[in-house]
């Protein structure tokens, strides 16, 4: 019997794995502490959350299995409905804010003449990263007060009619929270896009110039397609971040007025820390986890599909 060219006698996958482990044991040994820590501090809490979501756990006593009762309660709760709608608005607007301003600023700085000038502006946009986010929130909270900077500014430029109780009006509270932090240039997103632009070979820009792609046309036809990996990553991180975000509603409005700024993550937080219903809070957490996975998958699928 002659051997068929290109055909190797089969080897068991288990033996392959063991052989690989034997060959690379020093590397795996070095990885082990990290894996253990990640397992204990990241995967174990997630496992606890998933398993206790089906119980009436109060954070202390032995939990009793309650089946899908917590999930039924979550999906039938009208407050959860309002919170989910708020979150949807937040995710959509948050995505726009995470992508557009950093993209615009990175393009502008990238097109500046002179490396030193680029460096100076880049630094200017990154420096605010050192300010704790809570400080920013409290400052913006004071801006939004009835006697705050925003109303004072509006009054001083003759737009007194636009003065508003920004955080105590259900119609404006959510948008006030979403749109705090002007000029919305997230340092991480900006640097990611700027690095992406720097990574585009000069030949590509030269070729585009010869083809007549300059200005906005170049941005749309050359930069954006080549920045797709960075934009995709920012989109995924923004979706995950905004689904899980609840700090500004917690600090500035406690989810009010009414439930106007309540989001599911805040509901989860209050359910656990204020009401002591950890089982129900974990069910909300599991639903959020499923949503994050679904939205992340969807965004990856969209970005792949348009290639």
């Amino acid at each position: 019997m002659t051997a068929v060219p290109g055909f190797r006698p089969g080897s068991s996958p288990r033996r392959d794995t063991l052989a690989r482990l034997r060959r690379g044991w020093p590397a795996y040994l070095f990885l082990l502490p990290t894996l253990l820590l990640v397992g204990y501090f990241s995967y174990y809490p997630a496992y606890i959350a998933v398993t206790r979501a089906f119980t009436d756990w109060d954070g202390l006593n032995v939990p009793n299995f309650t089946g899908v009762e917590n999930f039924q309660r979550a999906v039938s709760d009208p407050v959860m409905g309002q919170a989910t709608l708020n979150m949807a608005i937040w995710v959509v607007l948050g995505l726009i804010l995470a992508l557009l301003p950093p993209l615009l600023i990175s393009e502008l700085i990238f097109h500046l003449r002179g490396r030193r000038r680029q460096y100076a502006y880049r630094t200017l946009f990154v420096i605010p990263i050192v300010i704790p986010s809570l400080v920013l929130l409290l400052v913006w909270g004071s801006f939004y007060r009835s006697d705050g900077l925003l109303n004072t500014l509006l009054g001083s430029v003759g737009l007194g009619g636009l003065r508003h109780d920004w955080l105590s009006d259900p119609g404006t509270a959510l948008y006030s929270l979403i749109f705090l932090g002007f000029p919305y240039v997230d340092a991480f997103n900006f640097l990611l896009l700027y690095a992406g632009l720097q990574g585009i070979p000069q030949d590509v820009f030269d070729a585009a110039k010869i083809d007549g792609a300059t200005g906005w046309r170049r941005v749309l036809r050359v930069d954006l397609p080549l920045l797709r990996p960075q934009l995709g990553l920012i989109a995924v991180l923004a979706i995950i971040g905004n689904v899980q975000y609840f700090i500004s509603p917690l600090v500035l409005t406690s989810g009010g007025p009414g439930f106007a700024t309540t989001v599911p993550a805040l509901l989860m937080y209050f359910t656990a820390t204020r009401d002591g219903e950890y089982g129900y809070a974990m069910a909300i957490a599991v639903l959020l986890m499923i949503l994050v996975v679904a939205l992340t998958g969807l965004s990856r699928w969209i970005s792949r599909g348009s290639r």
Partner: protein
Amino acid sequence: MNRRLTLTALILAAPALASTAEAAPGSWRGTIYMSAADYAPNFPGVKKESQLKVFQQIADEYEKLYPGIKIRFHNQPIPDTNTMIRVKAAAGELFDVYWAQAYSLNSTLPKGVAVDLAPAFKQPNAYIPGNKAWQDVMDKAQLAEGRNPSGAVYTLSGDKVAYTIFYNKDLLKKVGITKAPATWPELIAASKKLQAAGIFPMHAVPAYPWWSRHFLTDFYSKDYAKLTGYDGLPGQSPLDEAVAIHKGILTPKDDRFMSWWPVMKQFTDTWPKDYLTADPAKNYDAFQDFVGQKEAMLYEGSYKVREMLDAGVKFPVGAFNFPKLSKNESKYTTGVNTANAYSGTGGFQFAMSTPLANKTMREKGKPEAVLDWMRFFGTPKNLQRLTTEQGTYAPTWPGTSVKLALSNFDSGAITSQIKLPERSIGAQTASANLGWVDMQRIFGLYLSGNITLDQAKAQAQTVLDRAAQDYARKNKVDLSKY
């Protein structure tokens, strides 16, 4: 599994231990850790002249009596008591004795963080001469109001907070007001004057549980005995509340129940709207406006005086009580003075941890020793010593007297309201978060003009019905039999 069984057994045993304990710590020797909150002695960072010493003196007396037992007070700030209790209990490291709200222990905190003290309260306290049952020296209404529907009592409570309206004398003088408002129309007129002068009359979260009790106690004063008597005990318990809600008395079905909301709105319409829809916890932020002389008045508890001193308030502060209402404000008023209607439980409100929440309580004899320490400091004499020194809380036990030591602050208003009979009607504790969260949210939306009174009534009815149902379901009570 065995561990769980052991813990369960210990929890079940704890009340029994308490009930059979002798008036002595027994043979156990070691350190008892206590979080005494506002009564904590030698607290770091407090000005020398404001330092409290009495609890340490009481501890020294106990240590002298029982060599080998040490009492240690926790002297770090606790920003969020309930979170501290949950976290420490989950780790099995809760303090042996700690400050906690009876309301929280009865509702949102997990069962098993505090020992049921009711059996111990029925036993004599040997540190009180001639005492037959420890509870005989306590305030009966306070004891009843803090009782869990199961009959358990988780806190040793002995004082209360007096609520009043503090005011910045300089700011009122600035707009020509030299005498504190004494009636509702005077209060509104003063507020409008201040508003016109660009001064915030008040800038705070109008806490529903606080304000509602003044109005409801007045409007329902003729029904007081009925509304507090369903459970056969003095004071208004969560059961009394749930029954009254179920009967439609403490709901919008009764015209009196929300007829005061427009009256209150007259007042809050003169305030900036920033805090109207906020969570009552935001009153900590609102307090800064009073300290910073941005608002002229502050409705708060007597404990706030110490905070004013700590915050370095230099301007003259006065106080006036919630004014008596007349028929002009509401046709439902009965003319009763309800200044004393809201009296929150205070700083002397201590719980004892269980072996589940505190592993050291599994040591043989320690629960008896800790309970004995509570008996020792929980006497009328020591309560008097503690409240006299602390100066911002009013002791509630019969025979004790209020001695407010509020620095150079004029405490006349607080002193006079404390002398009033203790009568209070509310709709806030039948279920967890009823008053502080659910009703507060509706109240805020109405006061800020975001919903009409009819919309508020509809929402309130839903919330109250759910609260009564929750109470009945959780406590297996048939409300219709009352």
